[in-house]
């Protein structure tokens, strides 16, 4: 009786393997689930957090909305953002003369203020941890995450991204496509 039960148990055990093989066989006949990357790409990347990008002014697509309040640079946990404000423009010789004359007369001289525009906006992507604190705390909504999934470089220095240059590049590309469309 014991031997009979044992052999029956062996058959049951073997059956469990056949059931498993059936599953693998079934899925062997299915279409593959992966995407062959260079030939095909995925489309669900709208919210993917890639490197930062600047949001252009609605009137001038080459200039960012940024007012250089430094909220992003000072609050970044990793210190990944380097932001430098533009300096005040140098006065022309005529203006200097007028200033001196005004001083001689004893009037108060108003110096030209620096424009609220960034001179350099660099994101070191090797330091960024993509938390989104800069994006959430920007008072004018000047930065957002790009959804550049395929961003890759071969040297570490290339990870320091000049966001202003990238913005101008994008603006140039936009103009090109617009002119092409107009011609068409």
């Amino acid at each position, binding site marked *: 009786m014991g031997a009979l039960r044992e052999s029956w148990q062996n058959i049951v*055990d*073997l059956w*469990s*393997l056949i*059931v*498993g093989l*059936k*599953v*693998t066989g079934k*899925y062997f006949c299915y279409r593959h*689930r992966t995407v062959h990357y260079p030939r095909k790409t995925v489309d*669900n*990347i709208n*919210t*993917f*957090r890639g490197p930062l990008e600047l949001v252009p002014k609605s009137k001038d697509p080459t200039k960012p909305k940024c007012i250089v309040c430094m909220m992003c640079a000072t*609050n*970044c*946990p*990793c210190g990944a953002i380097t932001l430098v404000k533009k300096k005040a423009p140098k006065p022309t010789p005529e203006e200097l003369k007028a200033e001196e004359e005004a001083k001689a007369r004893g009037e108060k001289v108003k110096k030209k203020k620096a424009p609220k525009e960034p001179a350099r906006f660099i994101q070191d992507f090797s330091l960024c*941890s*993509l*938390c*989104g*604190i800069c994006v*959430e*705390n920007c008072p004018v909504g000047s930065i957002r*995450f790009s959804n550049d999934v395929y961003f890759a470089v071969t040297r570490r220095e290339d990870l320091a991204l000049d966001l202003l240059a990238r913005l101008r590049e994008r603006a140039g590309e936009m103009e090109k496509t617009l002119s092409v469309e107009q011609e068409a």
Partner: protein
Amino acid sequence: MTRQAAAEQVAGDFYTRHFVEPGPREDTLILNMGPQHPSTHGVLRIVLELDGEYILRAEPVIGYLHRMHEKMAEVKTCLQYMPNMGRVDYLHPLAWNWAFVGAVERLGEIEVPERAEYIRVITVELNRITSHLVWWGAYILDLGAFTPIMYAFDDREYLLDLLQIPTGSRLTYSFFRPGGVSTDLTEDFLKGVLEFIPYFRSRLPMYKDLVTDNIILRKRIEEVGVIPLEVCRRYGATGPVLRGSGQPYDVRRAEPYSVYDRFDFEIPTDEKLDAMGRYRVRVAEMEQSMRIIEQAIEGLPEGPHIVKGAPKPKWKAPKGEAYFAVEGARGKIGVHLVSSGKANPYRLKLRSPTFSNMSLFAEIARGTLLPDAVAILGSLDLVIPEIDR
């Protein structure tokens, strides 16, 4: 201690039979089970003393992935610390997000909108399923079967695509904020989750046919690595390890946080105490997570996803301390936050469940076969970055 004495103590390693406590025998084999290279991911080194193929002693050596997460909190503000919480446990980062955010909210008495609580429940439970799927695939891979991890990753990819919609990332999420969550859920996301649940329910019988009922797996892990409840209690093990030993302890039920008291779900336990028991508990937990998600989506209220006047990056926590515990995929995650009234926390203590779960390995592995030790180690579901923090 003189310099020479110190050098003698560290000189030599397992090759020179340098244990903290020397054993009674000299004819044993020392085996180093662990990393090929110290900077690979997930490195846990275990020094084994073997008699033939039987383990006389196992000494886990940890610390290769120590990244000073607790110390880093002292030089950052509460909000700036959020990216760290996504990197403590890379398989269930949202639970760590929640534990830290919960401690900050408890300390600052910040109110969380109801919608945010529901969003947290939905995303954390989805993340729990992905975590268990990785464990499921990797554990079977440890035991020598390659195919199942492909099925697990297929389903996990679907979930990662979904979680990418609100969080923006696929692995190290930094999604929660004190007072809510960073982005609201979209219709796409909810639709995707509602499609996923019946799909995944239909996949579970396939998992059962392919792996759970498979006689090779059952002979391999049944009655292996029996952890008595008393051992779990002694080492402070939690999560599926404790529930696999028959104790229905779950932070979501024992000290309900957020809105978990509104959901109807079971706490799976197993009386067999072995590796197969822990396996069954985890698979059952995936089903329970789906039940919670269904109820949460049904009851998802309208409203803001983050409270008005949520802490800014330079927000100063009031003086005092707070502790908040959540149930992660591996057990009880606790965050103890002490503030001296400044923007940076004075001290932060992270209680990681895997550290306690791993500690009992040395005792359980004694006297087992070497291949069984691998099966036991896998069944504990260790995430090494979480042990070292």
